[in-house]
């Protein structure tokens, strides 16, 4: 369960299984890496979402917030949900094979 918002986290998305699961984890042990990877994720997502007028924010090491330019937003837990909500906000799925999008990514 998320201790900040009380949301019940049913499953860990596969993209969040970066490290080998250990029996014991010292509190705060991987915090720096975790923060770094969340920031990187936010940056790449923003590079992608920019073309669609969406922005993603990292929130307190716990959630992400996606919003469009009119201020419509959604709180999300993991990558699986980012794409789902982005699709809802834009009205169509983001296609990673779209040549125009790829061209933009390369030039940025």
């Amino acid at each position: 369960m998320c201790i900040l918002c009380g949301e019940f986290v049913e499953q860990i998305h596969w993209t969040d299984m970066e490290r080998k699961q250990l029996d014991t984890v010292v509190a705060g042990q991987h915090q720096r890496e975790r923060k770094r990877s969340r920031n990187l994720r936010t940056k790449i997502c923003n590079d992608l979402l920019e073309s669609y007028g969406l922005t993603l924010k990292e929130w307190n090491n716990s959630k992400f917030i996606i919003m469009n330019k009119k201020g419509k937003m959604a709180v999300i837990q993991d990558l699986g949900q980012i794409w789902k909500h982005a699709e809802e906000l834009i009205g169509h799925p983001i296609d990673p094979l779209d040549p125009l999008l790829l061209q933009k990514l390369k030039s940025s």
Partner: protein
Amino acid sequence: MSNKIPITIVTGCLGSGKTTVLNYLLQQIDNRRIAVIVNEFGQAGLDHHLLRKSQEKISLVNSGCMCCNSREDLEEELKELLFQHEQLEEGYKRIIIETTGLADPAPIIFTILHNPLLRNHFDVELILTTVDVENAQLQFENSPEFVKQISVSDHVILTKNDLVTAQQKEKVIQQVKSIHPSITIFEGNNGVVDVNVLQKLKVDEPFYKQRPPSSLNEAGVSSQVQSISFHFSDALDWTAFTLWLSLLLHTHGENVLRVKGILDVGEVAPVNLNGVQHIIHPPEHLDKWPVNVSQSFLVFIVRYIDPWDILRSLEAFQHYIGSDVQLMEYQESI
């Protein structure tokens, strides 16, 4: 991971010998703590006291495509088995699921990985497909499920070998390999098959081999299944790579029949990635590099998408991912 009960799924077309093979295997191994779930009626039943039948009952989860259907019946059966497992002194050491001949294995994997209770107690370890060599040609042409069964499988068992010539058999092997280049092929005779078929083999690097377009293609069979594999020269950034893959699967998951690979993420040993359509198995951190593998690789089996688009997309992302991507093998339309 190791505490989970491994599940073996046996698929194959109607009449391709699933039950015969399974019957033989169960007699050969110590079957005392193995449970079998069958969901087909009117068959020469398995002579086994642990045999369970389940009726197909499908529940659609929100906004799911065909592969994201949850199978309620299976969920119930597995929960029941889990309950028994907890009560037994030693518990089950393996569960075998025999699917119907027409079944698409993806919903079964989805059911197990999607349910919070089941995903923590079970692990889909191995998928076997039986291929009837005599009728394989027909099934390749007419049955899209058949191609899918092969693409998600780890091992293929060729059955009814005695009814065909060596030439015909060789052709079927070529066809199977052209759908799924790194699959392991076993041969069965009247159900007699190497017991090792139940063991998951070590991961092998798909061998690089330029092949001419397959003969099936020349025969005018139009199936849109293609496969492509890549090498990565350096360690990948897991965050960036999974972001790309999760986006690809979100948008095109229905047409990505299989994705698998061994990925160097900058740790001592690589990560084993395995997915079917929208569903990715929990990535497995290996203890050491597999013997024949020296570099990260990734294999896609796709339909209706141009595999070259995937390469172009990966190339556009490669400055995030932190590694060059090189084409390893490409199989044209199968």
